[in-house]
């Protein structure tokens, strides 16, 4: 099985019109609603906070980034450098902080009970399982964040990254298909694609793959009926209402309109020699610049 670009659809028509997660009868036992977000257990190693039922917009996503950084500074302040053997706090057991779309997941060691929380004699040890501990901490951080939100928030100064893109021709075999579908000329498609600053919502699916917000709705084009066996690394593509850029060669069904060619000046989207290895990070702003 290969991962298909179908999976990077945030708006897959198959999946819309679902109820809020909290409606699920299966979930009542292990879920909780707090300050407009729902916390639930993904597995014995992971808990998720989902803020999509509150409001699904960029403001919600910004809160997710703030939550990630609050948790990082509270429980994982050791900066991550490639090659460090263990980036965890010795008394934390937290392994990963993973932002998604309007949600955030904490992955932790399910057998690790922080020393400071070891049960006293007679205490109910089930209250101190890592699932409980991390659920509580996640809720607490979200609550604190919402409380501080009521005060004036400084908008974070986002980094703007410019990537030179070769549009069309051999690098963008589907540029004409996108133009045809949108009723624009190829030239207009390129201009519209370059005209916007995109926001990196989060990184997932592949190392360094950015889920971007901001595509001009005019450019929305359905995925190809038959996915390509191979999409080259650096390919810039449109799939439904999404646009993205592939860090690695992989199979994919998106319409390819151009390619990013890393140079000495412009690092690859994912490069383990760099720190951080991913060129794009959640909350970055991204601008495509036409390069002929």
């Amino acid at each position: 099985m290969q991962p298909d670009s179908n999976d990077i659809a945030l708006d897959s028509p198959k999946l819309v019109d679902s109820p809020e997660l909290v409606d699920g009868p299966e979930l009542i036992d292990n879920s909780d609603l707090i300050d407009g977000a729902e916390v639930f257990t993904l597995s014995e190693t992971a808990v998720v906070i989902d803020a999509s039922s509150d409001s699904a917009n960029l403001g919600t996503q910004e809160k997710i980034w703030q939550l990630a950084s609050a948790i990082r500074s509270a429980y994982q302040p050791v900066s991550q450098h490639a090659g460090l053997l263990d980036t965890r706090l010795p008394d934390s057991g937290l392994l990963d902080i993973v932002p998604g779309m309007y949600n955030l997941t904490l992955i932790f060691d399910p057998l690790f009970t922080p020393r400071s929380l070891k049960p006293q004699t007679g205490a109910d040890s089930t209250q101190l399982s890592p699932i409980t501990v991390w659920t509580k901490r996640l809720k607490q951080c979200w609550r604190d964040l919402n409380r501080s939100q009521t005060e004036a928030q400084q908008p974070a100064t986002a980094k703007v990254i410019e990537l030179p893109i070769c549009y069309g021709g051999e690098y963008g075999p589907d540029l004409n298909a996108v133009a045809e579908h949108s009723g624009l000329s190829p030239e207009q498609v390129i201009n519209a694609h370059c005209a916007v600053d995109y926001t990196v919502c989060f990184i997932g699916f592949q190392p360094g793959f950015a889920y971007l917000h901001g595509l001009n709705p005019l450019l929305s084009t359905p995925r190809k009926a038959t996915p390509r066996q191979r999409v080259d690394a650096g390919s810039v593509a449109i799939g439904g209402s999404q646009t993205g850029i592939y860090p690695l060669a992989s199979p994919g069904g998106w319409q390819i309109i151009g390619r990013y060619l890393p140079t000495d000046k412009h690092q690859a989207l994912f490069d383990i020699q760099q720190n951080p290895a991913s060129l794009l990070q959640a909350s970055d702003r991204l601008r495509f610049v036409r390069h002929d």
Partner: protein
Amino acid sequence: MISIIKAGIQTSVQDLGRSGYRHMGVCQSGALDSEALKLANSLVGNPINFAGLEIAGGPFEIACQSDMLIALSGADFSAMLLNNKLLLGNNMSLGANNSAQAIYPGWRCHVRAGQRLVLKGHAGGGRAYIAFRGGLDIDPVMGSCATDIATGFGGWQGRSLNNDDQLSIKNPAQLPALKFAQHEQHNIDIGTRPLLPEHTVRALPGNNMHYFSAAEQNRFWQSDWQISSSRNRMACRLKGCTLASQPATKLGQQSSASKLYSHAVIPGTVQVPADGQPIVLLADGQTTGGYPKIAQVIQADLWRLAQFSHTAMFRFVPCSEQEAIAALKQQQHHIYRLQRAVADVDKRKRQ
């Protein structure tokens, strides 16, 4: 030093995987049957997360260029230790030159310089593991020696092994002493019974269960499943019945604006894409996903998915988070007991 003579199928350097980089899309990697790697490492006195080899199919053959202590685990690939040429010194009791000695999963043995280790493989699938006392000498990338084959980094040059690759083994001098029985100065060592996959896989009900009608949920838990042939380190696709996911409005619930947004997925997440064939994510699985999730295989049972043969039928059994953690603790105790059994406690006291 070991030389790869026959690389086998998708043989890769793996440890217990990496963490801390999922927010960059970097997957966990690491041994698919992590229990087997822990067991093999423990048998040779290594910490459980040392780098060893994972082999998905034979024929696999290595030449050992120095004396070493190794352990096998995981699937039974009919391993043989061959005496390549002459054997030196006082080990003639091993038998005539060119004799072959069988080694079983869950056993360790001394290998002399010049001997060759051959793993024939197993028609039904599964994965075999080899641990070397001292561990493979691999530079960690992002905190782990595991190979991320799809991305091409970590492990041995970021790829599966090829014929003629030469891998070094770290000096085991720093490791605690092991206890050896009298007879194993020269020959087969101690072993432990490897875990055998039962035909059940325990799972927590997924958090998108309301995408599936009660009838579809029952079909998931009551069907016999098989691993389809499209199986790799990222995921395995299941064969059995086809599950229909549906917008939950059809289940009589209130529709709302909320959609199923991508969130983190981890090894063991059972997703149901539009074609209705469930996919279980494994160690190299992507970090986020947007398909409805019907269940989450508990961490303690993930290894079974790595070891089921293509013909094996199995069922998913619902379980609680408490049971999931208890199962993990039980596995941890199994490894602790093994570590105590092989450690030379007397020698450590004398030091």
